[in-house]
């Protein structure tokens, strides 16, 4: 039982970070129809910027700067990914974001090198709750994620920018007709979603180091979280992220007991997540009417 709880605690925190990436994907997809493959790159950038900044600035300020900087990068990416009116299809946009992910990865390789990056957590020790070790950093990630998700939902409902995003999500045609520039809104959606993804790894990096090529893993996990709700629901993307994170930890934790895997279990961490995702998507496929 204790082991189980331990795995759940870790799973919720990594799952939260995946949820942030997934929520970003939902936001972008709903408002622009684009599935943003570079969403994982934003997370990596967030983590790497934070590692660089945390030596120079106070932790809070460093985090803020990292998130804003990635948000700015995100808005540029959005501008490029949307492409030209009447010419760039959603599939083309997906390929463009793929190219952007590659570009960011190679620039990161150049700037930061090929090694996992991390920074020390500010918390001195873990809490022991009934034998379950809880790293304060885990609690921080989970808490901030929940807060960010709530704030985002509120912002979408209550602010005019949020409503403009909602308008594009509801009907891009009608949004264009009232004079909303869909490209500008896309840039906003990309910026916000980039900031969210960055936030996840700004916080998670002390317990989950990032390398320049972590983007693919993060993008896929984020997509899986988003796909849990058919890329349409922020709430379901949040749930999807947590489910994915916990399931992944449980598979890894108990894999030794699965016959045939034995000691190689840890190497299957990512594969386990991906199989879970494939099952989830396949399950959705049976429920979603073809559009």
């Amino acid at each position, binding site marked *: 039982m204790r082991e189980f709880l331990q795995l759940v605690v870790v799973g919720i925190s990594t799952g939260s970070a995946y949820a942030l990436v997934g929520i970003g994907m939902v936001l972008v997809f709903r408002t622009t129809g684009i599935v943003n493959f570079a969403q994982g790159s934003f997370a990596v950038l967030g983590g790497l910027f934070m590692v660089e900044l945390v030596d120079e600035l106070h932790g809070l300020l460093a985090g803020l700067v990292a998130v804003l900087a990635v948000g700015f990068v995100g808005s540029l990416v959005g501008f490029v990914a949307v492409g030209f009116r009447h010419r760039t299809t959603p599939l083309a946009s997906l390929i463009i974001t793929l190219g952007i992910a590659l570009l960011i990865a190679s620039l990161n390789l150049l700037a930061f090198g090929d090694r996992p990056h991390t920074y020390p957590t500010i918390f001195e020790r873990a809490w022991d709750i009934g034998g379950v070790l809880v790293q304060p950093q885990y609690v921080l990630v989970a808490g901030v994620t929940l807060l960010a998700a709530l704030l985002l939902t509120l912002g979408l409902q209550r602010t005019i920018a949020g409503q403009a995003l*909602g308008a594009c999500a509801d009907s891009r045609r009608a949004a264009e*007709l009232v004079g909303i520039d869909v490209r500008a809104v896309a840039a906003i959606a990309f910026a916000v979603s980039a900031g969210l993804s960055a936030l996840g790894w700004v916080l998670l990096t002390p317990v989950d180091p990032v390398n320049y090529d972590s983007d693919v893993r993060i993008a896929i996990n984020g997509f899986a979280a988003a796909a849990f709700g058919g890329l349409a629901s922020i709430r379901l993307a949040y749930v999807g992220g947590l489910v994915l994170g916990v399931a992944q930890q449980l598979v890894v934790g108990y894999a030794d007991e699965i016959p045939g895997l034995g000691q190689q279990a840890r190497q299957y961490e990512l594969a386990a997540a991906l199989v879970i995702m494939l099952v989830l998507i396949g399950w959705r496929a049976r429920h979603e009417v073809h559009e």
Partner: protein
Amino acid sequence: MSTPPLLEIEGLVVKYGPAVALDGVSLSLEAGERVALIGPNGAGKTSLLNGVCGLLEPAAGRVRLDGRDLTGRGPGEIVRAGLTQVPEGRQVFPTLPVEANLLLGAYGREFRHELVSATLRYLRRRGEIAARLERVYSLMPKLRELRERPAGRTSGGEQQMVAIGRALMAEPRLLAIDELSLGLAPLVVQDLSAFLLRLNEEEGVALLLVEQNAVLALELCSRAYVLEAGRLVLAGPSHELEQNETVRSAYLGGGLDVADAEPGTQTEPGP
């Protein structure tokens, strides 16, 4: 020197791939005028509107507002120039409350900027826009009652009001309405046309009514154009067209109300 017409379309051609939807149409409309564009299903009426409003890029031809060439400009620029379209099938934002729908009609023009400056402009013009909202509410009191409700959960007639109200928030000088009567009960259509008439006469908003329902369109407008297979075939004052034999047999169904005869079957060729 004579002032140019409010809207002037010259030889407009719209294509979907190789298919020509609109084949060189010219028409014009003066400030404060009420003009109808009638024609059968698939004649190219919606293509014309979309070509004018910037949703489609015209293959040839010119679109001028107040003499200013706006051909091929984006829809945002057309709205800012004073022409707002009420799209076919209303197309409200279903998940947003009625009031947000209306506000977006006014704020839409700010969202060509990035988030920060759009929000700043919003704050700066808050009072002016609140006043405009108040005026729309006073023109359509029903909307005030519905302000909190998601627009998707209002009736068809109410959604048409929301769509018109949303368009009015942009303070247009020309309102282009695509299929006002589509799928609405005759009584509701009557109310709406009375409202549009008042809007035109009291506020001076020019109307371009794009309709399959020729009876309604000719009754409401002083002038009309008839579009068939992508070309204009007739034009003239409504009362003359009403007497025209071709129009009578083709569109007025020998006196039968076309709107009641075939409701909700209208579809224009999609992109």
